[in-house]
């Protein structure tokens, strides 16, 4: 490697003239993560549109003579896609026709607010389970056990709801508290195992999910729990004193969504303003430094899992005391696992998680209408949710598709990608 020393030619870079538009685009293209989130949602909707067309045999048949008369196929596709997404919107947020009817006096206000009520009903438990995953993740733990904790929350909240007689108000409080404690216990076990023995929380929480689910299936068949008037596996009905107050029927939205907002605020405060939040964030990103600074990593893990479990348990309790009013084997649905996705979509930030849960609720509520009205399977919603998560999990892909400026560096960083 021998070279001659050549005088370096210094090229002064011409200063580029910045216009307002270019500046605006530059800022947009510099790809903050919020942009990526929205672009991911957009991309998922685009792919969803393709799936809608493919899954409709009628529209697909127009494509057979696409080359001779493309307009048939394109118009039919467009009609179908726009109807589907319009339904998704109408079912989730508001239907202008219903509002019009309300103003004209031909419809009720309940019908006008029905969609948003549905969205919030689905969203409420997801906020809790999402927060559960998010807070655990900030502390460096991957809480896959939201499902099991929520199921136990359903059980304890539900059992207190129908088996204990207490005055109005107090009954609800006790039932919610029971839900929290049940979930907290289910979080405490893996937390303790992690702190004491180093057992990985992913393994232990997954196993506890099975135990919780099967425990619920067993429990609802037992005397004293099972509804004696029915032959199928279903529990007694929760007493009205323990049910979360809701808007008048047919609206289903209940106090749970308000509690969810309060929980979000509490978690946000806990993370950013409390010493425990400071500890858990430090433990989350650098346990050795936290230990060296005198924090107890084991104690933090245990307490964190108690809180995370408690939040998921509250989610289960809200589901039982608000939406369902009986325990069934599927009462918790998929709220625990959806909580994982909600936390991911919300970037593990409390308020982000709240918004993500509402988006999930909206997709679910809108999906119902889409199925009834446009005849598109509710599963499409699941596919959309999955696509959104895939894109968010691969930010470099999104940035590459939209040619965002940071794409190259993001690609370099993928191996170092934190967390998920």
């Amino acid at each position, binding site marked *: 490697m*021998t*070279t001659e020393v050549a005088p370096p030619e210094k090229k002064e870079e011409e200063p580029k003239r910045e216009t307002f538009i270019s500046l605006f685009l530059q800022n947009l293209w510099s790809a903050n993560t919020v942009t990526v989130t929205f672009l991911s949602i957009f991309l998922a909707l685009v792919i969803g549109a393709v799936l809608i067309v493919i899954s409709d045999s009628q529209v697909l048949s127009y494509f057979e003579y696409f080359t001779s008369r493309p307009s048939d196929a394109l118009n039919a596709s467009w009609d179908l896609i726009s109807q589907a997404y319009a339904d998704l919107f109408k079912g989730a947020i508001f239907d202008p026709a219903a509002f019009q009817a309300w103003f004209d006096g031909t419809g009720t206000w309940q019908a006008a607010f029905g969609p948003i009520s549905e969205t919030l009903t689905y969203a409420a438990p997801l906020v809790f389970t999402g927060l559960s995953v998010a807070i655990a993740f900030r502390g460096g733990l991957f809480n896959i056990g939201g499902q099991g904790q929520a199921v136990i929350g359903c059980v304890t909240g539900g059992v207190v709801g129908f088996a204990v007689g207490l005055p109005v108000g107090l009954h609800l409080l006790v039932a919610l508290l029971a839900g929290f404690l049940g979930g907290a216990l289910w979080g405490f076990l893996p937390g303790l195992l992690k702190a004491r023995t180093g057992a990985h929380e992913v393994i232990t929480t997954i196993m506890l999910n099975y135990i919780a689910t099967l425990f619920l299936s067993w429990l609802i068949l037992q005397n004293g729990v099972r509804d004696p008037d029915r032959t199928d596996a279903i529990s007694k009905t929760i007493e009205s004193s323990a049910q979360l107050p809701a808007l008048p029927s047919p609206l289903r939205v209940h106090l749970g969504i308000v509690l969810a907002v309060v929980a979000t605020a509490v978690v946000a405060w806990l993370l950013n*303003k409390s*010493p425990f939040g400071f500890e858990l964030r430090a433990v989350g990103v*650098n346990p050795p430094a936290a*230990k*060296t600074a005198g924090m107890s990593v084991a104690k933090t893990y245990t307490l964190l899992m108690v809180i995370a479990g408690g939040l998921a348990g509250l989610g289960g309790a809200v589901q039982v005391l608000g939406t369902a009013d009986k325990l069934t084997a599927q009462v918790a649905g998929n709220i625990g696992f959806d909580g994982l996705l909600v936390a991911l979509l919300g970037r593990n930030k409390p308020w982000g998680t709240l918004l993500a849960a509402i988006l999930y609720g909206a997709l679910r509520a809108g999906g119902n209408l889409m199925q009834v009205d446009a005849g598109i399977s509710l599963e499409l919603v699941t596919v959309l949710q999955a696509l959104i998560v895939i894109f968010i999990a691969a930010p470099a892909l999104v940035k590459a598709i939209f040619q965002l400026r940071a794409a190259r560096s993001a690609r370099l960083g993928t191996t170092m990608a934190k967390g998920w």
Partner: protein
Amino acid sequence: MRGITKRFGDLVANDHIDITVEPGEVHALLGENGAGKSTLMNQLYGLLQPDEGEILVDGEKKVFRSPRDAIAAGIGMVHQHFMLVPVFTVAENIALGAEEVRGGPLGFLDRRRNRKDVLETSQRYGLPVDPDALVENLPVGAQQRVEIVKALTRDVDLLILDEPTAVLTPQETDELLAVMRSLAETGKSIVFITHKLREVKAIADRITVIRRGRTVGTATPDTSEDELAALMVGRDVSLEVAKEPAQPQGEVLEVAGLIVDDDRGVRAVDGVDLTVRAGEVLGIAGVQGNGQTELVEAIMGLRPARSGTIQLEGESLIGKSTKQVLRSGVGYVPEDRSLDGVVKDFSVAENLVLDMYDRPPYGSAFKLNPKAIAVNAAERVEQFDIRVSSPQSAVGNLSGGNQQKVVVAREMSRPLRLFIAAQPTRGVDVGSIEFIHKQIIHERDNGTAVLVVSSELDEVVGLADRIAVMYRGRVLAIVSPDTPREEIGLLMAGITGTNDEEDGQ
């Protein structure tokens, strides 16, 4: 390398750097941390691609897309952070990336030939390695030899050594310098990246000094250390630690018969007796891995002691939690800054209260006080000259020296009885070293007992009022800093002169 320019965003890491290495030459690349030395060499080794400029090997223009290209062109590199697989044996690590196979297309690993090659290379260049040892069980010095042997088995003509002496004893360093010398004599060229002036003067044929991404000068080995330091830093620096004689008071820390095991259950500290008095610096010299780490961790409550006593002004520290030890007036600068010292994702302000966040005025058991934390941050940044755009920016963005200042500032910002600094200036630039040393002496002069652990003999000699030399978990001798370096060096290698025999155990 001609006109090499490399940018990271707005930062110009290398700005039109020209550098020529002749065959058989030891070329020192001298510069502070973050000056762009490693960036430059990473481009030569194909890890980074230059934005501008060209690389010529034997007069021929080359483009290196990956280290594989660079190795093919006869360029090898030993990184500052070793690139070894801990659970593989030495021979396996050396073969990694260029595995020898037999059996034609079946491609069985030819472990025997591989092992033989390792032994041959290691004998030829006088670099003893055990091909069957697991890398994770080797001390750092030996791991480095493995890295060098690995590069040499690839038949390289140019060997880049990135900060190779940072982890070595004086003896090991001397050995390494001798190896470098003999390699150069066989016609191999060596680029030696460092910020240690003494070594540069001892070995280099030519010195290129880099500051802030530019070549600021080339020098010959007869340039004085002060001149080189001034070139590096851009201003005059004092390399000596200026201090008055110590005024030792009563005993603060008393360690007696301490026995501590390491993570694998092997005895790391084997019966250590030490005392540190108020107003003095006790330096612990020793090659890394001789129990210093475990000794300090035992004092800090980070590692259980098997037996023995640790007393802080008569009060036992055995069985206390780290938090209790810190609260009883002990300041601690851990040796691995990026792992134990700071939380890189946290802001400077948060890191400055990392062990005081739940005490007034920074917070209580239930609430943090962001205002007090911010005020504290502003004060410390000012007082400790931490170069940071805002106290709210993440510590991970700071240079090593500034990160270390954050740690030192945090630990010195409360009343102390004992200050423990392990490797306080590792990976820290010359300017910050000077500053941190001054702070340590200042703390001593305030009447704090100071325990400094360092594998840099210069540092221990410069700071300490008394030096304890540790070897294999024991304190071999406690000597005065005026003791000849050679003697301390021999003690660090476990060789006790007849005079020291009684002090030995």
